[in-house]
């Protein structure tokens, strides 16, 4: 395949970035999107140019490192698929492809396509856990959990923290990410004692990091590679209201 790429290049956080065009030839349709970029980078290095920086690690859709906006869509055109799992057979010979970093106020660009997502870690630090110091646990069978709750908790817990939801949202909101964690822990009996402090702490950290609010656009759920549904935002709001009233 032959492709025309337009890629966001930005040498560091302070620099002014711009889209730069590259032509690339002989791309295998069995290659993954990131492998296509590897091929481009090999060429750029041989020509003495700085290769395109992008985050990636497991390349099997689970670590959440990869983060490209491809033709305006976070993780590209294929539903429920991370960039690293997107394969070139989804494109046509001769296509032009735009590649940009996540665009969100809370995720500043570090270089080229690499952004700083540490705000997500700060949200978790503010309450996205169950306090269970090592060694204090009762037997695993002490508390049965209905299968449907465990399954629903798992579905919410499947979030990989990639940030596509934020990149897709016109408000740059992190509420799908936060809702997924609040839902996961809120469905577990072990998560009940801290349920209210958790949601208040996480929401405060979310707002402080500069994420926007939710206006029910739904772009986040559409972009989510793990198909986390909008209902988690409903659960987040419900928990938040209850907690806020109790705290008042």
């Amino acid at each position, binding site marked *: 395949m032959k492709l025309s790429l337009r890629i966001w290049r930005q*040498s560091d956080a302070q620099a002014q970035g711009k889209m730069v065009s590259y032509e690339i030839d002989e791309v*295998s349709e*069995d*290659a*993954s999107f*990131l492998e*296509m970029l*590897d091929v481009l980078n090999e060429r750029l*290095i*041989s020509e003495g140019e*700085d*290769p395109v920086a992008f985050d990636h*690690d*497991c390349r*099997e*859709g*689970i*670590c*959440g*490192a990869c983060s490209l906006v491809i033709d305006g869509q976070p993780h590209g055109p*294929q539903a*429920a698929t991370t960039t690293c*799992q997107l*394969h070139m*057979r989804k494109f046509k010979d001769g296509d032009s492809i735009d590649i940009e970093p996540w665009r969100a106020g809370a995720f500043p660009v*570090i*270089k080229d396509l*690499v952004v*700083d*997502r*540490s705000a*997500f*870690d700060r949200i*978790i*630090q503010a309450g*996205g*856990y*169950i306090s*269970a*110091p*090592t060694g*204090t*646990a*009762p*037997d*695993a069978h002490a508390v*049965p*959990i*209905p*299968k449907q709750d*465990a*399954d629903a908790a*798992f579905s919410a*817990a499947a979030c*990989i*923290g990639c940030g596509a939801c934020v990149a897709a949202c016109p408000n740059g909101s992190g509420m799908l990410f936060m809702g997924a964690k609040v839902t*996961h*822990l809120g469905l577990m009996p*072990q*998560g009940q004692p801290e349920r209210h402090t958790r949601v208040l702490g996480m929401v405060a950290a979310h707002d402080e990091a500069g994420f926007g609010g939710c206006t029910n656009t739904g772009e986040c759920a559409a972009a989510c590679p793990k198909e986390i549904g909008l209902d988690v935002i409903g659960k987040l709001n419900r928990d938040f209201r209850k907690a806020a009233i109790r705290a008042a």
Partner: protein
Amino acid sequence: MSTDYYRDGEAVADAKAPAGPINERWEKRRFSGRLVNPANRRKLRVIVVGTGLAGASAAATLGELGYRVANYCFQDSSRRAHSIAAQGGINAAKNYRNDGDSVHRLFYDTVKGGDFRSRESNVHRLAEISTEIIDQCVAQGVPFAREYGGLLDNRSFGGAQVSRTFYARGQTGQQLLLGAYQALQRQVAAGTVDLHTRHEMLELIIVDGKARGIVVRDLVTGAISTELADAVVLATGGYGNVYFLSTNAMGCNVTAGWRAHRKGAYFANPCYTQIHPTCIPQSGEHQSKLTLMSESLRNDGRVWVPKQKGDDRHPADIPEDERDYYLERRYPAFGNLVPRDIASRAAKVVCDEGHGVGPGGLGVYLDFAAAIERLGRKAVEAKYGNLFDMYERITGENPYERPMRIYPAVHYTMGGLWVDYDLSSNIPGLFVTGEANFSDHGANRLGASALMQGLSDGYFVLPNTISDYLADGPFEAVDETHEAVVAARKEVDDRIAFFLGNDGDRTVDSFHRELGRIMWEYCGMERTDEGLRKAIGLIRGLKDEFYRRVKVTGKNEQLNQELEKAGRVADFLELGELMCIDALHRTESCGGHFRAESQTEDGEAKRDDEQFSYVAAWEFGEDGPVLHKEALEFEYVKPTQRSYK
């Protein structure tokens, strides 16, 4: 024999493992180890490198205990460490299924599965702790699979005849890691753990014979700094990426461990690598990594190849009697569930004979037609849906309609830095946990045991054993001006300056690929004396060429991914040579190490207990490695030739 490659050194002993009945040893050790008063813990600083299961669990637990912890990872978030990609599950001897499981049986299975090349004391401790891990993870809110009654579900996994594997769909590693990650983030908020993401350890600092710190590079700014502490814990994972293509994440590397090795830490059993039988075959030259399809698929999938060589018919057009279900044929007792090393080699045998399917004939079928007929498509979808989807995304083929094609790939490395029973390396103050150490899996790891070991080390073993060492601390204060610290930092500065100043013309990846091909060909699923000698020569030549021709663009004071890779590949080149020397010296076959010269009449691995019942702990030497042997003794599980027939 090959004294031109290495020298023999003194024997080494694990001095910390207590004697006495095996089921009392861990308790004995915990009691004999000295404790640190809670008020004194905050005066002690511990560096933990790595945030996977073994690192995050250790950092969080040490933080909870009140030590001052500094934790490092090269990823942009500690949640992305490669433990996250483990699919299948985690073993625990809970015997919730009443199917005859026990701590002793898990111990027995693990020693046997490791082909009698691990320490009984360590493995028994692992089996004991396994049950506590499940309790701990449930308390953290890990959403394990459950049954309708609300109790935890179990499955049989990877060559076990009991159902002792706990799982969270096909994402067990992710859920366990998120549990540890959340515990870690809680400690970050509490101020006990100072977490540094996008930082890479590039050197170990040793002062007066003790590990006292590390040199790290901030991967965003390029700033090099020295971090000092009373003890250093390496939880830096495995070295499978020495093969370039593996199921490891792209960033997995051996640099932290190798730097420690060059500073005196022994590297044990480097040749023990696990080749996983169920991975998606390579599709072309562009391939950057290989993807594992969980071994749980073998519970319901049947492995076969066409009986006729080079048969390129659509699999559905090949009638039953023209298919060779070779695992069921060769191993009727275990069938498709034989351990990984055996399944991998069997796949290689049929492909080498010309029965392989797909591009290059490097693939075998994993067929779900029978399972779909027996259980219904819906049940199969519920069990394996995410894996089937992943397969389709990568290959463009629908595994509900056409059998999967799979082929073995490098997955896990049983070797690693040598540690004693306390998980201390031979350098005082340097501890090693998880896949980075060599300790518990012998020559072959059983499925669902890696997560168990990582969490056992991090949550329960290390926090108990490290106190015995720290009880002597705080150690004499050292600062950045100490000559050992200055020297370690200079080594890092010089290496970086070399790479950036080298007037080369070949990319780092091109060297890595070439190294990987050499390793896979000669130190992969089957090894021979001749091949290994050839590989050592090739690697030495490649290393020379690397230093002459490698080209690294950009500068240090920026995010520079080529520079990161260059340092890692430089260390892989040295490790690769040591792996080949280790494989060459071990003329027996055992577990993941198959020497073609040592096999039974029907092609099974043949151990040589007379000569090789030891751990090979290698010391770094400028003029070649020095071999220290640690004898293995088996009091409880009598070594037998493994048989899965």
